[in-house]
């Protein structure tokens, strides 16, 4: 069965995924909205940067994060000189890494959903006296509902499933920065297959249920529309 560290790893993983998803939605929503509306010529550069974690080996990303955030890195050094502590090998470090790593999984569904709305509903709302911010919350957000669900679930699931980045930036400290995916690796290394099974099976089930939720919701959404036609 699960030992004490496994239970902590489970909680750290869920907390990490929850906090990261929240931050991802808060950062990703305005970013995705801006990307879907702007006619800025260089926006493809930004889109490519956001999509980088899709193709980059997680260890590469984790390595650079470690360099940047570590005590000798530009950001970490600045934090230390300000009297703070380096965030490498801390929970905060894990969150920073996860947010960057899962960003495309949140921004892309949102951007697609926002683009799919088109300009027209927003223009109609403008002629009905809605200010830009009012239009965003009363028209764009509800019309992009399925995009938000997809973004939240993918962001959460992808954070739960990451390995390389959290290993590099978190350092696999049991009880502090050890997450489930790494705990499984450790159990396999130590030939503790029974415990690895529990954790791996649990993760498999969790991921499957979350994806089912996305599909059921999107299906019910489209069924709801086709029913009435």
């Amino acid at each position, binding site marked *: 069965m699960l030992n004490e560290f496994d239970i902590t790893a489970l909680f750290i993983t869920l907390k990490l995924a929850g906090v990261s998803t929240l931050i991802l939605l808060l950062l990703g929503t305005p970013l995705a909205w801006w990307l879907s509306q702007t006619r800025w010529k260089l926006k493809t550069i930004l889109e490519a940067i956001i999509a980088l974690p899709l193709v980059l080996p997680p260890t590469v990303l984790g390595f650079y994060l470690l360099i940047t955030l570590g005590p000798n890195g530009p950001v970490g050094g600045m934090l230390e000189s300000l009297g703070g502590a380096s965030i490498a090998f801390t929970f905060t470090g894990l969150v920073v890494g996860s947010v960057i790593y899962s960003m495309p999984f949140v921004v892309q569904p949102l951007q697609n959903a926002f683009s799919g709305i088109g300009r*027209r*509903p927003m*223009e*109609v*709302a*403008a*002629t*009905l*006296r*809605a*200010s*830009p911010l*009012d*239009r965003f919350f*009363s*028209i764009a957000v*509800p*019309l992009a*509902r399925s995009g938000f669900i997809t973004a939240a679930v993918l962001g959460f699931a992808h954070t739960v499933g990451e390995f390389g980045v959290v290993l590099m930036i978190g350092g696999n400290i049991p009880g502090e920065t050890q997450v489930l995916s790494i705990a499984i690796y450790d159990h396999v290394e130590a030939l503790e297959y029974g415990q690895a099974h529990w954790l791996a099976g649990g993760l498999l089930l969790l991921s499957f249920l979350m994806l089912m939720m996305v599909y059921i919701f999107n299906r019910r959404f489209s069924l709801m*529309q086709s029913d*009435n*036609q």
Partner: protein
Amino acid sequence: MIECQLKIKQGGFTLDVEFCAPAKGVTVVFGSSGCGKTTLLRALAGLEKSDDGFLKVGDSIWQDGKNFIPPHMRSVGYVFQEASLFDHLNVRGNLEYGARRAKEAGKDFMGRALDLLDIRPLLERTTEQLSGGERQRVAIARALAVNPDILLMDEPLSALDLKRKKEILPYLDSLHHELDIPLIYVTHSPDEASRLADHLVLLEEGSVVGSGAIDEMLTRFDLPISHGGDATSLIEATVVGHDDRFNLMYLNFSGGQFTVTDRELPLESKVRLRVSARDVSLTQELQTDTSILNIFSAIVDEIVPEGRSQVMVRLKIKDVTMLSCITRKSAELLKLNPGKQVYAQIKSVALLS
């Protein structure tokens, strides 16, 4: 009164317009596709930004030089080509969206919009449960429910088939008669223009080629609409009597009385008549042995050539202007000259609205 002087550049296209429109009634912006009609309408709503210009609707100035009032702060109602209803709200939600936000809207206006467009039975439906015609009616009511100072409509019938068009047109007629705000209606359909317009703004390649009262505009020889097979004149008339024996109806206009097929309209109702220039023939003497019922004494106002074998004659029947298209030979035989008195025989009349 609407005063408009706007300039907008879009890629290779420039819209540069200047016109005035009356504070009441329907102003039709008429022109072929690509002439900038929609851009003009969007600019009136503030959806397109004019770098410079002047726009005043009633007492509010919406643009003065660089001073630009954004769309949500303009008191407009805008009906787009497609109904563009909000799919996440039902019909009631769509109607209340604007009404809740507009300070000037009260419950009365919502009720009036609902009645004018017959929306009450549709209120609890989702947008997917509406037909194309119903969608457009909801869109019009939604625009009206904010109690705007001006209603803008961008070809609201063009996305509908003929049957749906016929379903919506009576509602547009009632808007025309009931509304006390100006309505700017963009179309490329001569039928819709002659049916609805009180005032006409002719747009060609981004500039206004003419603007004025519809009856004057249709008979101005310097404009393309007064030439060719589509040349028509419009006459406002009132139903004054019915003849049950022959199933006819009598209509008074300022130049006399028309006899037309009875449409069972109530007495005193206002109708608009359209007379095609090709259906008006001229005689020197008053014909008595003729099948034509509508004959009026008229004075020739101006004659211009129409192609090689025809001429277009503008007639005055008292203060009403009418066009007649006849052959050049007939004009010469009748010795037509400005000021000459003739009789206009009108073969057929179309009843609009």
